[in-house]
């Protein structure tokens, strides 16, 4: 169906704007043939996006040809971390400036990120996967479907067990919700049962994963989910 809701046989299907409805996104991406899969990783400041990106590089790097775009709000901290972590060739990391508006750069105007993805493709023509880490942002920050084919939203236990039920497009519509730092639950008095139940309630049948990168530094569950996404042809 074309994005404006017009149906070929002349009527319109209404789109619900009810924020509690967790329908699957109807506007499936239509990537150009032959371009790498683009995976967005978003979530609040400090939730573990870079740590997850590094974990995915370690877990997938040996058999998936991949590269990373970071959207640092300030400096090139995340890009530098990834380069220094030695999980990826330094020339497979691109950092973009976001003009003090991290959500704009991944959603409303994705130009800088597309430019960075294209630079990586020019340097590495056989890339299969580009991971795009957003700058740390608020619960409404989601990736444009023009930029990310699939997106992961990372929240952490240390932010409090209320976060999933606060909702917002990040929590409700991301293709995978990751609840990170479960090792800290007891220290901050977070109730994991509540947190996971709220997450499922907000997301319907969309998947939720809990993890601790200190306990499982290679993020096996998320890496497995990403492999599944890579195996499915896009746009179907």
């Amino acid at each position, binding site marked *: 169906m074309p994005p404006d809701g017009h149906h070929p046989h002349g009527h319109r299907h209404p789109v619900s704007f009810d924020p509690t409805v967790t329908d699957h996104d109807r506007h499936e991406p239509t990537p150009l043939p032959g371009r790498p899969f683009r995976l967005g990783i978003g979530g609040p400041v400090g939730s573990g996006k870079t740590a997850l990106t590094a974990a995915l590089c370690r877990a997938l790097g040996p058999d998936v040809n991949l590269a990373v775009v970071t959207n640092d*709000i*300030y*400096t090139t901290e995340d890009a530098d971390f990834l380069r220094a972590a030695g999980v990826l060739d330094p020339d497979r990391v691109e950092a*973009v*400036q*976001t*003009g*003090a*508006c991290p959500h*704009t*750069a991944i959603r*409303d*105007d*994705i*130009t*800088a990120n*597309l*430019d960075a993805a294209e630079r990586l493709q020019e340097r590495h023509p056989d890339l299969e996967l580009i991971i795009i880490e957003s700058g740390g942002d608020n619960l409404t920050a989601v990736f444009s479907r023009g930029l990310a084919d699939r997106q992961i939203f990372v929240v952490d236990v240390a932010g409090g067990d209320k976060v999933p039920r606060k909702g917002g497009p990040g929590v409700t519509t991301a293709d995978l919700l990751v609840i990170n730092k479960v090792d800290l639950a007891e220290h901050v008095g977070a109730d994991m049962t509540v947190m996971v139940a709220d997450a499922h309630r907000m997301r319907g049948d969309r998947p939720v994963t809990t993890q601790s990168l200190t306990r499982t530094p290679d993020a096996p569950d998320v890496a497995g989910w990403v492999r599944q996404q890579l195996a499915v042809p896009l746009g179907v």
Partner: protein
Amino acid sequence: MPTIRNGLAVLALADARLPNGGHVHSGGVEQAAASGLVTTVEDLREFLYGRLRSAGFTSAVFAAAATHAAANGEVDWLVLDAELDARTPSPAQREASRAQGRGLVRAGRAAWPSPALDTLVAVTGRPHHPLVLGVLAAAAGTEPWAAALVAGYQSVSGPSSAAVRLLGLDPFAANAVLVDLSGELDRLADTAAALAHLPPGDLPAPGSPALDLLAEAHHHHHREEVRLFAS
């Protein structure tokens, strides 16, 4: 002042929401703020006035010339592009202009595709932003004057919004300062449109050494330090 044809295209091209990557450029404001040259709304007024009369005028002239050229055929895009290079002494500014040109090509291909746009890109590779703007304005069926108006407006609207984000200025005051440039912007568009038919080498070449230096300083200092904007 001419009647604007296809006003929606003109408004859309000038809109800050146009997804062309403009929001990551501050037009020298980030460096000016970092060096303490712009800290208040009054400083911003002076900065924007100077920017409009120099970089904004150059941009408007070349946007108008590109609209005229695209509408009338018979143009050597490489020459027009090189003449704008020659009027942009700072390498950092040339890069910022070409980066924004590339972003505008992407947005323009979806909204206002045209053979002239394809030719411009094929011939120059990464054309300067005002040339792309001018070609899109022609494809949208509007005049050199409107292209100049948009180019001039963008030379100050982006920097003004960057100042609000960087310095926490009162957005109403910053907007009022921007809107005060109305008469100046009309005059600039009139002049640019009147010159649009000239051979590229005869187009005006106003200098703005302060902006050149700010762009270069931004490029050098912010390689190591904090940098929110690409320029």
